[in-house]
């Protein structure tokens, strides 16, 4: 059936969150899924901390994440257009990769379905751990 874009009235097919004509984004919750299948979700911008990783990787991998406040590896940011972005934290001792590419803390990276976010060593970004897969659900979906 699809949905009518409130901005340009284009009929967008079911399952798509973004109007392909004008780029309008439906409001979504961002979901991060860990390699062990644990999920974490949010509707608002948030810092991804060691605590978040502890939910996602309760056994070992969360211990790669710095414990000090302000050293969280990255944030997820929702803008006014309902786009989700990743922002690496330059003050964190660990680096972040998006789909294998090192993220520049001075930039924000648009997040798409199935993107993969990993924690990487600052000295060798090819050493990546604790991958998270990005997905979205509509704000009001259960």
């Amino acid at each position: 059936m699809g949905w009518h874009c409130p901005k340009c009235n284009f009929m967008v097919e079911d399952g798509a969150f973004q109007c392909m004509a004008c780029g309008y984004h439906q409001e979504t919750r961002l979901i991060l899924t860990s390699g062990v299948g644990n999920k974490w979700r949010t509707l608002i911008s948030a810092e991804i901390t060691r605590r978040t990783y502890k939910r996602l990787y309760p056994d070992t991998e969360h211990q790669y994440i710095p414990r000090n406040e302000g050293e969280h590896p990255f944030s997820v940011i929702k803008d006014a257009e309902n786009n989700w972005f990743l922002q690496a934290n330059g003050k964190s001792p660990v680096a972040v990769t998006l789909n294998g590419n090192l993220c520049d803390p001075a930039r924000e990276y648009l997040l798409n379905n199935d993107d993969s976010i990993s924690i990487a060593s600052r000295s060798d970004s090819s050493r990546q751990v604790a991958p998270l897969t990005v997905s979205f659900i509509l704000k009001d979906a259960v």
Partner: protein
Amino acid sequence: MKNTLFSKGEIIEGEDLGVPYKFQVLKDGIQGSCSVYGPGMDLIQNKRVFLKYYFDPRPKAPWFSAFVEYQKKIQNRIEQSTNAKQLIAGIHRYFQDHRRHFWQAIEYVENSRDLKTYLKSDDISWDQRMTFAKVFMFAMKILHQELRLVHCDLKPENLLLVPQGNDNYSIKLIDFDRPILLDEEEIPWGYNGTPGYKSPEHKIHMRPTEKSDVFTCGLILYELLAKEGHPFNYAAVSDDYNENIAPTPHLLGTFGNEDSDRLIEETLHRMLEPNPDDRPTADEVYQVFFRAGGSIRPKTPKAAQDHTRVTQPAHSAPAASASVVTNQSPVNVQALKGAADIVFLLDSTGSMTPCITALKQHIHSFIEALIRGDESRNISPVEDWRARVVGYRDFEECNKSEKNAKLYRKFGGGGWLISNPFTRDENELHSQLDKLKSFGGGKAPQESLLDALMLVLKSGFLPAGQQDAGEADGGRAWRTNGVGRIVIVFTDAGYHPTMSYCAEKTLFEEGALYPLDLRGAGLDELQHAIESGFFKVYVFAPNISDYDELSDLSNVLIMQSDDEDEGLVKMMSDSQIERLIDDIVKGVSRSSSDFREIPI
């Protein structure tokens, strides 16, 4: 000029290929280059249409039949494309009258105005201009890629904007008289076009291509998006413009960041390259628009690029805010032992007066117990405390109208959130409680507890080691590095299960200090804020089911009473306070070294 072939009231009636048609002309037709057109009515289907009668080609023209077939082919392509049907005013039906003249009855686009009218009246916002540009280029991509045709006669008059309410519009492309199908070799009837909107190659009668459309789109986008407007002043010199000297455009607004703006300006300029090969495709232009704002964009706010995001309320002095209150803490700062920041978050609606009074009575013993500790039970004292009082009510109710806002201001001493700075002075704490006026609420109310809690948690953090923010942050920021961060909630009501706070929707300065939009957020987001900030939340609440889910959150302890009237006050008895303090000091004494890190 009145056209006798197409006059108001005229009935066009007959049968084509065995199918009857009957239309009434509603207004005298307007003569175009090859057709006469105007609104009409399909009397068989009782539907308003846009009628178009083609006097060129005439039925005797050698290529008339080819033209009719060609038109049918175009319509079939439009019909088969779900995307195109939405972006093009569709054909209701076509037919040949008894003299074999060709007619089209086109979808009548109600309430529409063309882009030229909007541009003239300057009645469109920058946001609308951006949206039109995106949808227009999406439509062009569909024309070129899915329909495989070149429009050939693009101009602002052929872009209809249809109001959808809330200042939003849908777009319909019109005038598909003589487009060029890319897979047709011969076009015996020549190429349409409008002076001032033809590409250089079109002007010298070469066959227009998709890149010719792109050139024309470039001209229209200059008019729509650039300060320069139409780059060749077509109104004055129409066909004589020099296509080699299109100025670099300067956008009327921004697409979100400088990188995107520069890319769009460059792209618009490239669209007007004299050599078609040097122009981008419609799809490339669409992609540039679609990604404007960035799949990668500079971090915002720009001034804080060397810092992570500043999470403190926006009221802080702009220069000081990034440096004084931040979520950053240098590594290896000695953690404070036995230090706690405590927020008393009180439901401040009408029925809470006894509870606020009871809290005033117990605040001294609470602080005494806090700083005393209990050696016999190995509980360390909290030697360094700061506390503040925050009152909350119903955000939506308070911000529903100016009238409500005035009432809250007059009788409630503020808006839905009454916030105070941290203090180490017990008298000041008393005074903060004194200032809290019980107001609002109602029968079985739900208050904005989750919103208030979230704003308290998101009040910003002081740099590690810093003990006070002074004036810079309104004194609300939490200390970091081993300082226990505690929120104690007192309420006698339920709470809205989803948050509705939005800085832009608040009618009060106090509420607007937090530049956040929490609309729709719920317990998931609250849990994250509690966990990531290492908060501990105690909730004194009535025994209602609302609190079942809240009690599932980690680091949240709910203390409930079955006594609806006196419950909350009784819960402030010595034993309960003792239990609370026990828990708090245990938390504060906990070493933050209960985590270890593994190097990657």
